[in-house]
């Protein structure tokens, strides 16, 4: 589904990704871990098409297409979803309007008919249960005045509505208490299907107790320095990152 080869990316003059190689197949969950500043979030943002990063080398193929040539909205229409580490507040646009616009844009791109507000409301009623969110939040401005936990739930709700083929969760667990973490993880697990894949970017092993990965990768200084199965996460939790060659700060 996704093949990253020797990916380099910079912000300004600073090179952050220095040759990432990663392959993700349908049905898999990959965890990307690493110390602060290792480039985890940059990788997530580059895959979503953040215009602030410049890709300086390498290639990314997504379902046979050159992903790097696609605009962010086209990537979303093709099934890529990034759950933001810091979800953006949009005062004045209601959550319901925002999600319906996104949903309908993606349907339009697929040549499907758009849902009217009432039909969309029915769909939302189903999805909102998944993240245990107060339906009243649909009428509030996007993320505006939401608590940290509410923002993260709102990201997972969007994911549930848009049903991506490749979901990238960027530190979705940071700042969550254990109950919120379980809600978020349950949401993600409920959306797993054999034909979609998930990349979980996290600093902590904790989330991986609930979203169990097939592969764990350690990112350091812009490169993947170690890969393994789910037991690698436990080892990292116990020993930190310093024992891995190339991961020392």
């Amino acid at each position, binding site marked *: 589904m996704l093949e990253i080869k020797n990916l380099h990316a910079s912000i300004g003059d600073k090179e952050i990704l220095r040759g990432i190689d990663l392959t993700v197949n349908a049905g898999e969950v990959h965890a990307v871990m690493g110390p602060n500043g290792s480039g985890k979030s940059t990788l997530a943002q580059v895959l979503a*098409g953040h215009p602030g990063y410049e890709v300086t080398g390498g290639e990314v193929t997504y379902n046979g297409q050159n992903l790097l040539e696609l605009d962010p909205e086209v990537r979303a229409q093709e099934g890529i979803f990034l759950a933001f580490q810091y979800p953006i507040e949009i005062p004045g646009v209601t959550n319901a309007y925002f999600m319906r616009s996104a949903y309908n844009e993606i349907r339009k791109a697929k040549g499907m008919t758009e849902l009217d507000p009432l039909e969309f409301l029915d769909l939302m009623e189903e999805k909102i249960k998944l993240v245990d969110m107060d339906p009243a939040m649909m009428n509030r401005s996007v993320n505006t005045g939401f608590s940290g936990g509410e923002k993260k739930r709102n990201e997972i709700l969007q994911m549930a509505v848009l049903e991506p083929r490749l979901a990238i969760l960027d530190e979705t667990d940071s700042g969550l208490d254990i109950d919120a973490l379980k809600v978020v993880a349950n949401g993600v697990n409920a959306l797993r299907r054999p034909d979609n894949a998930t990349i979980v970017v996290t600093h902590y092993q904790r989330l991986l107790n609930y979203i169990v990965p097939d592969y764990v990768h350690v990112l350091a200084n812009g490169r993947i320095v170690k890969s393994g199965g789910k037991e690698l996460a436990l080892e990292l939790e116990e020993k930190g990152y310093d024992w891995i060659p190339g991961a020392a700060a």
Partner: protein
Amino acid sequence: MSEAVLDAPESSVEAYRFTFEDSARTSNEPAWMKEIRRSAMGDFERLDFPTMKNEDWHFTNVGPIAEKVFGSAKPGGEISESVIDRIAFGQEAIKIVFVNGRLSSEMNQGALPDGLTIVNLAQEIGAESQLLQRHFGQLAAAESAAFTALNTALATDGAVIVITANTVIDKPIHLMFISDSGAEASSIHTRNLIFAERLSKCTVIESYVSVGGDNYFTNAVTEVFVAESAQLSHYKLQTEARNAFHVGTVQVHQKRDSRYESFSFATGGKLARTNIYTTLAGEASEAVLNGLYMCDGSQHIDHQTRIEHVAPNCPSHELYKGILDGNSHGVFNGKVYVHPEAQKTDGKQSNNNLLLSDGARVDTKPQLEIFADDVKCTHGATVGRIDELALFYMRSRGVGPAQAKRLLTYAFAADVLEKIELESLRESLEAQVLERFTS
């Protein structure tokens, strides 16, 4: 039309003098009114049109108005019901229609609810009205403001509204100032007086629109008296023709425990200036001044507001937003002046602007002048562009950049529109803004 053979005027000021002399000669107005007008004409000539050296006009060059000789408007044609309904945005209202500066149909006093009197200025002047004699020009001083002086000298008509004490008027009063093709190349001077008596409550809307006129000059003044414990919502909707000029002044005086809510919506005109001035003269009176201006092309839209805190314990809240596209120019100049006696003033003022193009420009000058020592006042201004992060966020959800920009622009405006207390107006303006930025 005058049959006298006059030389062509050498300047627009002289042309206004000719117009004034013309109407003075045939006027049946009472002596006191003639005197007010003659004195105001003198003020106008002495003041002349303001230049950019005048602090109040620092960012707005009224040259295009000053250099042009505008004639008198022809009588207006009939305005169809459907046009009036459209201007009324579906809101049931007491509608008073003026076309090219004159009342378009007879007033029907009998149709008004109890406790409400509306007469037109032209008739009221003739009726030797005590009310008018006492209050006309009391708030809007001709001595210091050229456009007000010109209006005082030449005002043809307008509405005089009295909301009697202890009366709540549920239906809004909608004053429509319409310019049709007969307004071409002419200046229109309308003057309104609103008296909200003790413990009354009412909503007044002023709309300035064109249904055919394009190149004309509207110069409007409204004087508003808000008595003890009265509540008045006052909405000004300026959607003049794209080549029109508009100068509008609202001058308010508030007594104790009164509340005045104002919203100025301005999208029209080639060069437009709105002044909203209020004086919190009585203790615990409250002023809420909000507004939204949107311009594009080569439009120039200017707002000046002044809130005078004279009495103690008064809150004032002000939020103006501007959206500027093309090569347009927006101006906001807001002053909050706290007099020495106005302790416990709670003043909050902000102005936020969104620039959609490289050619758009805004000058903003929020000012606080405080002469009391126990007050809470804040003010601030921002000028920004579309938030790139928000744009990326929306794009990452599948929404294309053009649509995302429109939504974010709408959201910027909706934030101030939601403060409008009249629901139908709020919804109508939201729809107008959404349409402007999504079609």
